[in-house]
């Protein structure tokens, strides 16, 4: 299983929880072993990431149905995220380097997955489109939205405000 790390990293960012990520990856491995015959010379990493993503959504339907957002434009942005972290509380307890990671974790699922596939797995737009089963244009717009949200994240601003106060 050469791409286990990649699969685990994706599952970890999608579930935001270590033991759930293990469950999802294990399920994905069962499927991968079953369908390994279907993989012919293709990109094994993208193939495995696709399976992990499917395993996650199936797991999510069973365990956290509220997180799945139907995409009709604005729905993603309006969806309340039960796992999201309260910015003020978070900023007061966290070190600066954790803030960005938490801001990524707080992104709505459809944005989080393209961002993780792009920045951490470093897939190309085309590969992300294949893994996430989206048109390339949607990949690009979701990435832009994810980055916009990160840049304006109240978490980052809470920290920035605190550090500039400290400088004074």
């Amino acid at each position: 299983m050469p791409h286990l790390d990649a699969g685990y990293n994706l599952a970890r960012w999608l579930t935001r929880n270590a033991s759930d990520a293990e469950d999802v990856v294990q399920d994905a491995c069962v499927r991968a072993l079953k369908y390994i015959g279907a993989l012919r010379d293709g990109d094994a990493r993208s193939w495995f990431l696709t399976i992990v993503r499917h395993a996650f959504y199936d797991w999510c339907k069973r365990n956290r149905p509220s997180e799945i957002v139907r995409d009709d434009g604005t729905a993603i942005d309006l969806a309340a995220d039960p796992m999201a972290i309260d910015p003020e509380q978070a900023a007061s307890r966290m070190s600066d380097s954790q803030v960005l990671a938490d801001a990524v974790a707080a992104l709505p699922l459809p944005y989080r997955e393209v961002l993780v596939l792009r920045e951490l797995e470093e897939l190309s737009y085309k590969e992300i489109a294949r893994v996430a089963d989206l048109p390339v244009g949607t990949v690009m717009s979701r990435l832009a939205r994810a980055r916009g949200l990160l840049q304006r994240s109240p978490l980052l601003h809470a920290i920035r405000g605190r550090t500039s106060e400290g400088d004074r």
Partner: protein
Amino acid sequence: MNCNEAATLVARYVDGEVDDLQRRTIEQHLRTCANCVAEHQAALALRDRVRAEVPYHQAPPTLRERVRAMAAEAAAAAGAPRPRPLRERWRWLISGAVAGCAATIMAWTVGTTVLAWHTNEDVAAEAVAMHVRATLNNHLIQVASSDQHTVKPWLSARLDYSPPVRDFSSDGFTLNGGRLDMLDKQRVATLVYQYRLHMIDVFVRPETAGAAPTLHTIRGFNVAHATGAGMDWLAVSDVSADVLKAFVERLARDEGAP
């Protein structure tokens, strides 16, 4: 081009998803438009922060072990669809013995790996320090060329061995050049490759005994090692561990000069 058009192109430019014409267009626009320059800088800064601060989670060893067992089971099931029936008692006895053997083998593997890892750790840390220094110096390249026939003679003339030099630009790994470094009190050849936006330093030295292939992460940089073609290959980069490992193993495969 106006700034609206530029905005989407800036993101693609940062992601390395533009063709030559688009690259030239956006670079020209960035020379004249301060607003878009700021956008570009912000996008680069965010990308660097995300890569530096957002952790890449590696599969825990317990999961790795479970998956390995699953794969072995699947392979066994595929190879021998119907295991011969054993008497219940024997099955327990044999499985006990197998578990005992497996535990011993695992303990031994873990022990030797840890030992090998400790001896290699110093070299790996040194290699990472060198990579960081080179990056700070804007990637110090003493012989800049994407032509392997220029880089190889330059290195051989300065070393007592001749490292294999190959270009893999067709697969996205472009040879940028080479330089000399001191690694483990030894003069070594360093090949500088570029993959997308990442610099990869590959330290090449004649094979030494006792070096075990390892893969680890030091201060966010991945270090991958392989042995082959009579050489030790140590690659350091911020590119993902999977990609780096595959690349260094490919380098080490003795395919001869193309």
